[in-house]
Every structure is written in C-alpha cells, then in structure tokens.
C-alpha cells in the first residue's frame, strides 16, 4: 500500500528536464563549478595584487594575504557554481524562482548525492559519507604518528611533519568528523522523529552541508602550502606559536570559519525545526531524547561557535593586518586567546558528547525493550550540562598563568558537571535493569560507550581537581582522557547510530556478524591503545612530542601495535557499510521494533517522510506498557479506538 503512495510523490517531483547546450555550463552543477572556481581564484588574486600595488606594498605576491583571499573567494565561487545560492539569487533579483522547486529534493540516483539537494535525508547521508572520508584521512594520520612513536628517537618523519600530523588529525576529527557526523545523523533522523516532512530551512540545510567539504579540503590542502606545510600548532592553535608559524597555519584559521559557519547554520536549522515543526501532540516531554540532545547541542553551537571563529580571526588579523591582539610587546594578551578559544572549545566537548548521549538513550531503550529510566531527569540533565558547560572553560588553563583565583570556581563547576553526567550514566544502567537485552551491534556500541565514557568521565574528575591537573596537564594522561571521551564516547555512539539507522537510511540490513567483529576489534584495540597512556602521562611523558624519553619505549610500542589493530578495525566497518549498502538484505520498515516515528515509515522513508502528518499521543519509550502508543499514523486510525476502549 505504502509503495503506491510514494510512487505518486516521486512523479509529482520529477527531475527538471535535461539541460542542453550552453545551459549545461550556466545551470547549477559541477560543469559550472569548473569555470566559477578558476574565475574566483583569478578574481581573488587580482584583488590582492591590485590592492597591494595601489598601496605600494612589496612584494605583490604575498602568500599569507593570498591564502586569506583564496580561502574566502574560491569557496564562495564553488558554492555559486554548484548552485548553493541559486534560489536566493533568483528571488533577490526579482526573477521567478524555478517552478519545479522540489526538483532538487530527494535522490533517485547516486548522482543526486553530488548535487545541492534540499532533502534532509539526502543531506544526512551526504554528511555521513563526507565525514567518514575525513575520519579515515585523520585516522591514517594517527597511524603515521603511532608509527613514529613506536620507538623513541626520530624514525620516519621530522618534527615539523609530526606536529602537522597531530594538528591536522585533531582538527579533522573534531571539525570534520565528530561534530558534523552528529549533524548528519541528526539531519537524517530529527525531522522523522518529530513527524516533520523536512527541516525548517531546506535550502540553508543544503548550503550548510556544502560548506563542510570546503572546510575539510582547506585543512587538508594546508599540506600543499610551500615552506612549512600543514599547520602545526595543535588544534588549539595557541598563540604566539600560531602567529609565528609558517603560512600553513592560516589554513586552519580559515578552515575553522567554514566548518563553524556550517555548524551554526545547521544548529539554527535544528532549533527552528525542533521548536516549530513538531507533529501535533509532540510536546517537549514527548520528544525522543535524541531530539532533546540535539536541541541542547544546537543551543551550545549557536552560542559558542562564534568565539572560536573570533579567536581564529584575531590570529589571522595579527598575521595579515599586523594587529596586536596577542602581541605582548604592544599590549596584546597571550592568555586572552586561551580564554576566547576555550569559551568555545569546552562547550564543544559537549557539542561532541550530547548528541551521543541522545543516540545511546534511543539504542539502549530499544534493545533493552524498556522505557528509558527517568526520562525527565535525562532531559533536564542535558539542559544542566548545557548551562554548566559554559562555566568550566578555564579548567583547561589551570597552569596557564591566568589569575590564580579563577581556578577555584572553575574547579567547582567542573566537578559539579559530573553530577548531571552521572545521572545519565546511572539512568542508562537502570534502563538495562529487568530489561530483555538484545546485543545487536548498535547495542554493543552503546554499552561500550557507557563503560568507556565512565572511564573518560572519571579521569575528568582527576583533571578537574587543580592539584592533580597541575601534574597531569599537557601529558599523555590528557591524551588518554580526551580519547576516552571523544573516541570511547563520541565515536562509539556515532558507530551505534550509524548501525542503528543504517537499515532506515539505506533500506538494507548491515551484516550483523561483521558488525560484531568490528565492535570487539574496536573495543579491545581502543582500550589497549589508550589505557596505558594514563600511566605513561602520569610518569612524565608530555603530549605532542615526536620523541620521548627511552623509559617509555616499551609502552609506546604496545600502544602503537594496538593502534594499528584499532585502525584495521575500521576496514571491517567500511567493508560492511559499502557491501551491505549495495547488496545487504532488504530492511523492513522497523527491524528493531522501535516506537519512535522514523521506524513507522518505510525504509528508506518516502521523499516527504510521512504521507500524512502523524498525531503523537504518548511517550516514545513505552516498551512493555500494554496498549501504549507513541503516535497514530495514517491507516492506523481505525485500530485506535477499539484499543482505547479495551483499556477503558
């Protein structure tokens, strides 16, 4: 029955007629990109050279300035070429907007994934595939690092390359993988979960996605910058090192702008969608926790991200415009940079955690066949983390030389934020209690997340305590901590989410056996890689070093070998995803017997998600409650009344 209805949608929004002749070059698409990008490059170059010669500056070809101009103009030219601005350009210029307005909506062939597409489901998959690409790139960099670190002394790379490796590794993992991977999952799932046909601003959504590969390619191409190569001051890009560095550093400053803009636009879209487009009956207290989590995350993104953008702009101004924000000789303040940077980057840790909390809640509840324990407190603790998350940033600066008194209140808030986090962990455990646990791959990753995240959270208590932090900060203990939080926490939940929604997204089941192998390889490899780092760090090995004291040689060898195993586990994941996507068993609409709305439509869902907007009538987690329903969908209506009568 459902299929017929969808076929109708598809024909109603057929692709536009094929373009002919010159139209191929002038219409939105990759052919237009081929000439807009070089044009943008020439324009930016002439602008800089023209302006410099008008001002009498020498030399005319100043790479720093050119990099700034190129990284602003060329991406804009790309976006214009691919068609990111078409609709708005027509509208602003008073021309009729294209009548077949939904032509860029939904995907009929793989080619539609390479277009500006306004369908949140297509965008979600675009996000996930793009972010997995950068995940693999950044992971390979980690492999190079571990190869170098396997033995003390220098073997394969020089220190400049090594510093570049860990800087680009972290930047890609954070800005091009974890944050946007959650945005991708959210993009796919949120409108479905709240019973909406799409996001509130589909065109903005498409634009947000296309900013992302730009940011990633800018960061990656920093390797091509002559004299010094990639940015190599860490992803934290502390001044004055960042200001003194070779030109490649600008690629970080500019890359972050594009990634940040993408984040902010997506977050605004999520907020407006969640606030205004919930299906009738979907009150805030009936929203799935994933939606709550993205609501909190998006608020964090909107409020915090401008600070990291600002911090990197200040560095760029210091370099290019010769301002003195961070030059102490002319009244600048070095430590101020760290305050601005961490005012974003601590909340960013929660930006990278809260959506994972949401995924864990969905997965654990479904695979334990139980309502989530303490739903309201779960939602409120997200809000508590959101608020407290803004008051802890200076715990990254206990040894920075800032005013000593600031450390105390920051320590208190840092430790207190463990309370709402603890509530969540305890509630997940209580959700398992008296459940009927099914250990499918998503559940394994969700449970792996809970246990690993507890270790990361507890090592966070150590680092929150000022005396311990004074000893442990900037050592491998911190490296262990962030990887337990971001790998054991964020990445495990991203894997859980990808496996969980894979049937919905692709319409096919993944290979369960390979999924289980992937989990166990990852779980064991992860722990053997990162747990010994706690010890190595406390013993005195600083982080971000290419060479280290020989006493740590044996443990580093163990860590490196384990990390190669961990890296190899990704091959299993990629193989499973690619092969299952092409040839997996067709997925039923609701393979996990879940109650949330995305599972009540076909896999993959119809272009506009619901043939009729669903009516939400109860909580999304009423497993085991007789006769309870989350929503009434079209066609089910007849069944509802007799059931309610039975209940009465």
């Amino acid at each position: 029955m459902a299929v017929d209805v969808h076929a109708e949608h598809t024909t109603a929004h057929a692709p536009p007629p094929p373009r002919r002749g010159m139209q191929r070059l002038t219409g939105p698409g990759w052919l237009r990109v081929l000439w807009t990008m070089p044009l943008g490059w020439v324009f930016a170059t002439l602008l800089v050279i023209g302006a410099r010669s008008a001002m009498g500056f020498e030399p005319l070809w100043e790479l720093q300035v050119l990099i700034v101009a190129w990284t602003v103009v060329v991406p804009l030219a790309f976006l214009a070429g691919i068609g990111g601005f078409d609709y708005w350009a027509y509208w602003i210029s008073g021309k009729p907007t294209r009548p077949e307005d939904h032509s860029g909506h939904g995907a009929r062939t793989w080619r539609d994934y390479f277009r500006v597409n306004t369908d949140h489901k297509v965008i979600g998959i675009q996000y996930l595939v793009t972010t997995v690409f950068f995940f693999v790139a950044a992971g390979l960099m980690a492999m190079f690092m571990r190869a170098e670190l396997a033995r003390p002394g220098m073997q394969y790379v020089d220190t400049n390359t090594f510093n570049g490796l860990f800087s680009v590794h972290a930047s890609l993992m954070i800005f091009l993988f974890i944050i946007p991977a959650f945005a991708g999952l959210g993009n796919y799932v949120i409108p479905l979960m709240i019973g909406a046909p799409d996001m509130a601003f589909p065109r903005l959504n498409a634009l947000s996605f296309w900013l992302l590969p730009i940011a990633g390619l800018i960061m990656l191409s920093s390797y091509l910058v002559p004299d010094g190569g990639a940015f190599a001051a860490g992803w934290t890009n502390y001044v004055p090192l960042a200001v003194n560095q070779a030109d490649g550093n600008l690629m970080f400053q500019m890359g972050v702008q594009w990634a940040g803009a993408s984040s902010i636009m997506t977050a605004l879209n999520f907020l407006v969608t969640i606030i205004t487009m919930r299906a009738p009956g979907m009150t805030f207290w009936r929203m799935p926790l994933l939606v709550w989590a993205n609501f909190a995350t998006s608020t964090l993104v909107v409020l915090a991200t401008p600070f990291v953008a600002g911090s990197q702009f200040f560095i760029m101004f210091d370099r290019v415009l010769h301002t003195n924000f961070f030059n102490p000789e002319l009244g600048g303040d070095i430590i101020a940079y760290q305050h601005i940077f961490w005012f974003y980057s601590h909340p960013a840790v929660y930006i990278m955690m809260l959506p994972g909390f949401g995924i864990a809640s969905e997965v654990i509840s479904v695979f334990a066949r139980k309502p989530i324990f303490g739903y309201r407190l779960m939602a409120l603790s997200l809000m508590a983390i959101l608020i407290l998350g803004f008051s802890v940033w200076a715990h990254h600066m206990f040894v920075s030389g800032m005013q000593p008194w600031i450390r105390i209140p920051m320590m208190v808030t840092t430790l207190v934020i463990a309370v709402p986090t603890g509530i969540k962990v305890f509630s997940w455990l209580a959700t398992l209690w008296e459940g009927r646990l099914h250990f499918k791959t998503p559940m394994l990753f969700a449970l792996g997340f809970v246990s690993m995240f507890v270790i990361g959270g507890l090592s966070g208590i150590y680092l929150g305590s000022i005396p311990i932090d004074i000893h442990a900060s900037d050592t491998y203990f911190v490296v262990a901590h962030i990887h337990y939080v971001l790998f054991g926490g964020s990445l495990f939940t991203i894997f859980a989410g990808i496996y969980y929604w894979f049937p919905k997204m692709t319409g096919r089941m993944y290979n369960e056996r390979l999924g289980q192998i992937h989990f166990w390889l990852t779980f064991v490899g992860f722990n053997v890689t990162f747990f010994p780092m706690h010890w190595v760090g406390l013993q005195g090995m600083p982080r971000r070093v290419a060479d280290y004291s020989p006493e740590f040689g044996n443990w580093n060898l163990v860590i490196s070998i384990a990390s190669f195993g961990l890296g190899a586990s990704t091959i299993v994941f990629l193989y499973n995803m690619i092969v299952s996507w092409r040839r997996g068993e067709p997925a039923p609409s609701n393979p996990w017997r879940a109650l949330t709305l995305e599972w009540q439509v076909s896999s993959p869902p119809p272009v506009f998600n619901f043939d009729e907007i669903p009516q939400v009538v109860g909580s999304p987690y009423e497993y085991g409650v007789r006769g309870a329903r989350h929503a009434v969908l079209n066609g089910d209506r007849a069944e509802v009344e007799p059931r309610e009568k039975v209940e009465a």
Partner: protein
Amino acid sequence: MTLVGVAVGAALAVVAVFIPWLPDAASEQAGIVDSVYWVVTIICVVIFALVAGVSVYAVYKFRAPPGDMDDGSPIHGHTGIEIVWTLIPTILVTAIAIYSGVALAQAEDVPSDHRVIAVTGEQFAWTFTYPDIEVEGGRPLTTGELVVPVDQTVEFEITSKDVIHSFWVPEWRMKQDAVQGVTTRTVVKPTKIGEYDVVCTELCGLGHATMRSRARVLSMADFQAWVEEQQRLAREGGAVQGKELFTQQCGSCHTLADAGTTGEVGPDLDEALQGVDADFVMESIVDPSASIAEGYEDAMPDNFGEVFTEPQLEGLVEYLLQATGGGN
C-alpha cells in the same frame, strides 16, 4: 550480583593500587598532590566498580533468549533512587573540590625563608637565574641546568622570551606555563637529593620534544660548593667549563660526539665546525642569525651573548674547536 561487584572491585583495586601510577615523589608538593590523587582514585574506583559490576551483571542476567519478542518491565523511573544518585555524587564532588582547594593552598604556600629562582623558557632551552648569587661582573648566576639545595622552598618566577613553554619536573609534580610578558609563579620544596628531568610540556615548535634540561637537588653543603665552583668558572672560563656549558645549553639541539649529545634541531657540529675559526664559532653563538647552515631554520636563541659571561663564551669556543679538531 554482590559477587560480581566484589570481583570487579577487587580486580580494579589491584590495577589502581598496585601499579605505581605516579613517579617518585621528590618534593613536599608531590606528597600533597599524591594524597589528593589517591583520595580521588579511591572514590573513582568505587564508582567504576559499581558501574562495571551493574553492567556486567545486567548483561549476563537480563540478556534476551534468541527469538525473544517480549518487552522488559515497564519501569519509568524511581524518584527515590534518582535523588540518591544525584545527591551522593554531589556530596562526593563537593568533598573532592574542598580537599583539592585545601591541598592547593598548602602546595602553593610560600614560607618566608624561601629562595627565588627565575626561569626563562625560549625555543628550545631553559635558563635559570639566581638573583641573589653574584658572579663575575656583578651579574646574577645564570645556568642552563637547575641546581637547588634540598629542603629549601623555591619560588620559581617563570617567563618566556617567545612562545609559551611549560616548566615541569614530574617528580616534583608542579607545573607552570611560561608566557611572554607575564611572570608566572610556582612553588617547590625539593625533599630528595637526586637528578631529575626538566620537561617542557607546552607545544613550542620544532624542538619541543627535546626541550629538556636537568634539575639537580644537592645537600646544602654541596649546593654551596656548586655555587662557588660556578663563580670560579665564570671568572676563569676554559675548555672544561666550556664542555659543561655545551652539554647543558646546546646539546638538546646540536649533536656533538665529544659531549655525547644527539640533538637534531640544529646542525651536527661534528660536521658543521670542520675547518672554521674561532671568530666564526663566536659569531655563531652570539649572533646565530648571521650565518645559517643549509637546510636549517633560523631557530637558535640569540641571547647567549647575554646569558654567558665573557670567560664562559671564550671557554665554549675553545672547547668546541678542541672537540671538533678545528681552529687551525
């Protein structure tokens, strides 16, 4: 359930207690930091054992049989339990915060009879200045290795000439960033005679990994003797003192077979100094930017002319020429 909990707890306690997590404690501050560390460890082990015990038990006990289509018990929450697991962690973290705050105040307490040593970081070396010890020419004693007497509190006044560095001796536990334009402070009362590494923990550029120096803790009598020796060397110079200076100040960046150093940031001096004369060596030390060896960056600190006394510089040049067979 209890059994699982006890087993997990015992296993964790072994890991937590019987592995020597922290290096040797060689200062009063280390004792204080370590006591906080162990209190936090006990609390965290209990919490982790609880979480791990419950997880393992639940995974074992509540796993669904194959083909099971039933749901679990529809438990939505329990206000009492929720209050308990909000309150107890609140109390625990408050206790940790108070204990940490008190410990911090103790660790950073500066008694009136303390010694001040100025620490300057730069790419990629540490310089230590003793403002109350005078050497030749009325200038304060300045060294590349840190030497302190045991059982006397030292307040380090730390700054940087360029990027941020961070001063850390793991066995002392105290760490403090060195920031240009700012004087930061940290306090250490060494309690054990011995030799320790001074490690830079803030990424400072190409030579970050090798930006290390040595901290020696001596008895008061040995310290006095060391001070007098330094004063004598600063007065007399000579190749012997030059070798010592080289090992302390130059070896982290330069390879020199005679001194047994293997730094790779700067040129290998066994090769670079073949067939050069004393003037070139002197110029390369006091004005390193004047001539840069091919394939290297202009990264060497340019302050050695100020840090070293005239006799020290001459001794260093003499030693370098001796060690590389040059000077003819």
